[in-house]
């Protein structure tokens, strides 16, 4: 029952982090210039009304008490309402999140298909021109600004070749192939740095595995080279890669912000940027809180997966 223990331990360990994140998110709202009440009260500047509102929103209480009220609200799933549209922030997030998750999943798939094989090749061909070439490609993937890559792809693939739509979003439930067509370019853009990370980590994990005793033993007893690489070395090298994939969640979310902006995809990232520009702080705060909670959850998952895929720990 090691897994249960690990999950339990990690949840306990994650709690202080989550609490500090919530304090930071709460603090963001408090350092804002201006009195939010004046917006709420609109033209009604009657001191009695303002005082009543202050009482209602607990603004007369000490900050710590205000924070407790706010946390109680958040735990109930109430992240406040958008200052612009008045719709609940949680509803907006629930609406936009699936779009970004689809995009991220597709991007991760592409990154795995590119990053893993390239990483293996670079490790196997260590010290050759191939390794150097793969390294440069990976570093280029990490260095290319994703908004530039997106603009170039739109220009070449959509405008010049007319192969794919330039931007927009179609839900998968409506038209699966059209949805895929609109998602493929943004997913490639989002995948570029992720593929680069995966490639570099696969390469170093493979290098380590290829130097291990069991690989030498396998070679010595005459196991074919391909089998040594795939069955002996890769299997062990994949252990850290599996956890890395979960940890790249944050990278995907950050990349989605600009990618969605360029391809006009109505996801999580675009929600945040639009909120930034309309000074809709409640939404910005909600998005930050959600992403951080998601990241902490993915960390938890990474720890659990590490135990699951690592037999040495499982039987300990």
């Amino acid at each position: 029952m090691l897994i249960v223990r690990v999950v339990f331990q990690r949840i306990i360990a994650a709690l202080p982090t989550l609490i500090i994140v919530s304090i930071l998110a709460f603090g963001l709202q408090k350092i804002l210039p201006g009195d939010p009440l004046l917006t709420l009260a609109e033209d009604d500047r009657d001191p009695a009304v303002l005082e009543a509102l202050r009482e209602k929103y607990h603004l007369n209480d000490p900050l710590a008490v205000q924070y407790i009220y706010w946390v109680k609200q958040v735990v109930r799933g109430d992240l406040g309402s958008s200052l612009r549209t008045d719709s609940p922030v949680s509803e907006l997030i629930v609406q936009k999140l699936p779009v970004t998750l689809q995009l991220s999943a597709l991007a991760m798939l592409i990154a795995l298909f590119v990053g893993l094989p390239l990483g293996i090749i670079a490790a196997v061909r260590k010290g050759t021109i191939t390794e150097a070439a793969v390294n440069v490609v990976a570093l280029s993937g990490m260095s290319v600004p994703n908004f530039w890559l997106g603009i170039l792809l739109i220009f070449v693939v959509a405008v010049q070749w007319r192969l794919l739509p330039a931007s927009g979003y179609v839900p998968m439930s409506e038209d699966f192939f059209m949805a895929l067509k609109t998602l493929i370019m943004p997913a490639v853009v989002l995948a570029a740095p992720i593929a680069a990370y995966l490639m570099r980590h696969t390469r170093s994990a493979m290098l380590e595995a290829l130097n291990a005793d069991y690989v030498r033993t396998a070679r010595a007893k005459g196991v074919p080279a391909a089998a040594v690489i795939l069955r002996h070395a890769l299997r062990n090298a994949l252990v850290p890669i599996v956890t890395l994939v979960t940890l790249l969640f944050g990278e995907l979310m950050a990349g989605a912000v600009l990618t969605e902006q360029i391809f006009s995809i109505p996801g999580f990232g675009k929600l945040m940027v639009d909120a930034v520009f309309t000074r809709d702080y409640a939404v910005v705060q909600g998005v930050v809180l959600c992403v951080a909670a998601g990241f902490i959850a993915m960390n938890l998952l990474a720890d659990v997966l590490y135990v699951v895929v690592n037999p040495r720990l499982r039987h300990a």
Partner: protein
Amino acid sequence: MSVHAAMEVATVEKRRSRTWGKFRRNRIAMFGATLVAFFVVVATLAPILAPYDPLLTNFMAVRQAPSAAWWIGTDELGRDILSRMLFGARASMLAGVVSVTIAMLIGVPLGLLAGYFGGWIDAGISRLTDALLAIPFLILAIALSAFLGPSLSNAMIAIGISVAPRFVRITRGQALTVSAEDYVQSARALGASDSRIIVRHILPNVMAPLIVQATITIASAIIAEASLSFLGLGLQPPDPSWGAMLSIGKSFMVQAPWMSIFPGLAIFLVVLGFNLLGDGVRDALDPRQDT
């Protein structure tokens, strides 16, 4: 100087020249260093090199294609793109260096304190670091600069705060290891004060990984600044920044592709330069690769 001290200086010198030698032989790293040097020179000499005033509009020459008069064309207001890019290099390089300096000024002392003293100081600093690292760096930077207001200096502060946790983490880990070393223990036994131990013994041993991290973080800070100014949260128009040029160029991609191709290429090359340089420095400083 005692014989022992002289020998110590000699070893340090030897190690330094070996690191430099290893770095120089690494052609890819040298290419990165050349790219970085090129952009540093360009940013410094922008006023001399620029053929036109970067803010000078010319409505007779709007969106001109690259030619002998405008080497990489003009923008939607007839401004020379080359001149704007030369001056834009300043915003990018400045943002990269200043935000990483801010991050180090916050991160290194906190990391040293956490790693050296341990206990509740470490627990507090580490939890705060974990919390900040849970918010993806670019998202934190966007949120912070939204709250601070759009300008280049606010963007640099936002980026600096957002990347500071990386420096806390690296410094703390390194300080933790070094604190357990024999020479630190003996310094303490000899009665050296905490601050002397931290500055004289721990900080120098933390430097190598910090230099590598700083180089690579400049690369991400430059991309972050370009991203913020692409979104309109960085340097404000009409002052030129590569991110903002791309953002306008995007609307004219079909009629004037040069407006987006070149600023993007510049961001890509300078970031690639810092990444290659960082990789090379890491390999050169890594004692495990010495044979």
